[in-house]
């Protein structure tokens, strides 16, 4: 685990003495009560987890799924009693190996916030509701490969798939279960559920003031108890305040109007220490910054040029430019995933080597310091997000580093949809961006020949074949091997240069206990039940 951390350090420092005094045992009584004020920088569009265009920070405290990813991006059971696997019989692959069946056993005694029982009907309903074309929602992946759902009794759900779906847990049923008794036969696009959803989670939606805040109150009948028998959750109230301006966000921390900010801007994080009473937690994030090559450009289609790029870029400088927070990576699979292969080939920062490769490949140095081949200069248009200070700094550094090996970079930055359009259509030579993924990402959409997000015109049949294996196999060992192949092929063929993995900087009041950052797209609020505030 790489929850680095200043929190660990702080605790070690502060608790060190106390620990020594108490002989190594820390017996802290958990306090009930209190309000935690959280600052969000985006405007919540809808409280429905399946149709929101954002990560559903507030929503995940209300609505629970069958499974959820924990702080190590591993799935753990929530409303199901265990994570189905082939080993425990939860997943059964058909004899021909072409389809599978997953059986969930549901937790008994769970009640919806309105007091109704949670049953298998709700699970089946959620699948039907989400896959219904009339329901406008973007998070529908996972619904199309299910052929039918059987509910032999209230606490058993049998899901039949038409294919092998190893990432079955990434969206459907994990994003949340919807209440059948409230929503059956209703129009999900306009239902009041989208404002004040009814879930089974530790907190209940009390008020949603659009553009202002969401208020969530403690669910007194929550199904979970702590290990010591305490009825969960501890906190009385969670308030998510919508604060679109990052300066104001910092102001509200200083004035104690906010207790927690999950997206502290990198360039303002240094201030946090001076506020007093807050700690800055550096959490891992399933995100990686990458420089993509467009294969339509004949120079970039030459592996020698791509290798020269790989040797010419010094990641340490990129990290320094981002406040020292990100970490260098060599694989598109970020190290927190179990499928990360540390033997993935690596390109040392070595401008000499880059120059040698380019010389050998026939790119001769011109008088202006830029190499040419067949009379054409080695000059590329580089697209990244205009207005994003971090991304533009990275661009400047990469420009300077590549100038050292005789490659010219011309910035052509765009913002918002213009940027996305360029990325989709491959309207660039080089593209720098970041991907943030779920706990079990499907990499073929980025680098597969038919990948929806492959705007760079990259096609490698060998890689496509490995993607095919990964996406149709449930066997951990097969997948592990295939993931190693993916990482090796990408590192050797270099359709993209993975540069740094980003971190999330969470500012939180020192009073908040039992908080651990969650790196997945299920947000830091996927497991809030045991959070509590210590005495002031």
């Amino acid at each position, binding site marked *: 685990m790489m929850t680095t951390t200043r929190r660990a350090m702080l605790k070690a420092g502060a608790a060190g003495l106390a620990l020594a005094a108490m002989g190594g045992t820390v017996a802290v009584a958990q306090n009930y009560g209190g309000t935690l004020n959280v600052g969000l920088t985006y*405007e919540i*569009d*809808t409280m429905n987890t399946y*149709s929101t*265009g954002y990560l559903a920070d507030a929503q995940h405290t209300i609505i629970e799924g069958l499974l959820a990813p924990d702080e190590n991006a591993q799935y753990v059971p929530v409303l199901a009693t265990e994570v189905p696997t082939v080993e425990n019989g939860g997943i059964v692959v058909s004899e021909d190996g072409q389809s599978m069946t997953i059986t969930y056993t549901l937790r008994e005694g769970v009640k919806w916030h309105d007091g109704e029982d949670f049953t298998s009907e709700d699970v089946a309903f959620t699948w039907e509701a989400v896959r219904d*074309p*009339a329901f*406008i*929602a*973007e*998070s*529908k*992946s996972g619904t*199309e490969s299910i052929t039918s759902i059987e509910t032999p009794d209230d606490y058993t759900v049998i899901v039949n798939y038409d294919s092998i779906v190893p990432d079955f847990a*990434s*969206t459907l049923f994990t994003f949340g279960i919807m209440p059948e008794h409230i929503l059956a036969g209703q129009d999900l*696009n*306009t239902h009041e559920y*989208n404002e004040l959803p009814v879930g089974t989670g530790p907190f209940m939606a009390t*008020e949603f*003031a*659009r*553009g*202002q*805040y969401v*208020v969530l109150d403690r669910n007194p009948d929550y199904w979970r108890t702590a290990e010591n028998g305490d009825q969960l959750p501890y906190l009385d109230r969670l*308030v998510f*305040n*919508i*604060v*679109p*301006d990052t*300066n*104001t966000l910092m*102001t*509200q921390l*200083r*004035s104690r*109007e906010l207790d927690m900010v999950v997206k502290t801007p990198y360039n303002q994080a240094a201030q946090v220490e001076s506020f007093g009473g807050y700690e800055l937690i550096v959490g891992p994030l399933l995100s990686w910054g990458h420089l993509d090559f467009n294969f339509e450009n004949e120079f970039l289609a030459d592996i020698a040029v791509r290798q020269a790029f790989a040797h010419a870029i010094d990641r340490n400088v990129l990290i320094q430019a981002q406040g020292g927070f990100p970490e260098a990576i060599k694989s598109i699979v970020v190290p927190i995933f179990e499928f990360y292969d540390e033997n993935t080939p690596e390109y040392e920062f070595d401008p000499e080597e880059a120059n040698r490769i380019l010389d050998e490949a026939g790119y001769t140095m011109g008088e202006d310091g830029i190499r040419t081949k067949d009379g054409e200069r080695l000059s590329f248009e580089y697209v990244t997000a205009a207005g994003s200070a971090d991304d533009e700094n990275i661009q400047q550094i990469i420009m300077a580093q590549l100038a050292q090996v005789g490659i010219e970079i011309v910035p052509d930055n*765009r913002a*918002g*949809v*213009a940027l*996305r*359009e360029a*990325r*989709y259509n491959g309207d660039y030579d080089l593209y720098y961006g970041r*991907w*943030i*993924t*779920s706990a079990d*990402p*499907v990499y073929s*959409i*980025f680098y597969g020949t038919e990948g*929806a*997000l492959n705007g760079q015109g990259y096609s490698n049949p060998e890689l496509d074949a490995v993607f095919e294996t990964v996406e149709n196999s449930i066997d951990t060992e097969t997948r592990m091997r295939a993931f190693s192949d993916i990482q090796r092929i990408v590192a050797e063929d270099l359709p993209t240069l993975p540069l740094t993995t980003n971190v999330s900087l969470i500012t939180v009041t020192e009073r908040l206990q039992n908080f651990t950052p969650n790196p997945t*797209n299920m947000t830091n609020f996927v497991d809030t039940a045991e959070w509590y505030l210590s005495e002031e």
Partner: protein
Amino acid sequence: MSLSFLIRRLLGAIPLLFGISLVLFTIIHLAPGGPLDVYADNPSVSAEALDQIRARYGLDDPVPIQYVKWLSAMVVGDWGLSIRTGRPVLDEIVLRLGPTLLLGGISMALAFCLALPLGVISAARRGSRLDEAVTLGAFAGISLPVFWSALLLQLIFSIWLGWLPSAGMKSVGDGSLSDRLLHLIMPVTVLSLATIASWSRYIRSGMIDVLGQDYIRTAYAKGRRETAVIALHALRNAMIPAVTVIAIDFVTIISGAVITETVFAWPGIGRLFIESMNGRDYPMLMGLMMMGSVGVVLANIIADLAYAALDPRIRHG
């Protein structure tokens, strides 16, 4: 001024608004990208889901057909559904219009009450210390960026003194009058500052022109006191140039104050517009921009009427 003038102006506004709507619709569709691109950053959104959304919002029709559909719905009062939130555009706008009118209205009223005496006094005492002080203050007010003065106020009153909430419209679970007033103080101050500065300059220059007129000398010759000359003879005429500016500024209220609303987390129209623009939420953008256009057209008509009321020599016939 006649009723027929008013009717003619209002009827004349209808083709104008059609023209505006056509231009706006064209421009927002010419801007690169589309409403579904926000989902492009999310790798778990499937192509099928996007197709369903596209079909549902009629985004796969050619743009001219989309325009005709939008227009024929708009004419009968159906503003469409927001693509970003899935809720009716009109509901969203009405929800945001209240806070915006509250903030803008109070700021403008305050600005008018302060700009008028400041402009008049500095014109009447032209060249005096007072005039110089007001002029300096006005230029400072015009030049200070809103986000900077907002940050400064937040630092002083929220962090150092702890007297005022730094942002938001009301506290959770409160919303009493005093709570709302406390939340209003800083945004109103920031928003009215620049307006006071610019309006007082217009009023000052209008006043200086008028004070040099023959009829003012006549009024003094009759033995009237200065206050009476200014209030009864000069003020009405001096206001005419300022009226256009004030009328247009008043209308811009309904378009929201983007920066002030963002810095103070005020749930108004300005923020809604920015959100909608970033997401290329076409129906919402059209609704907001048409509302703004209607406002500007009406404000011009009102300004014309106000001229005639202030100066009987101006007649519309």
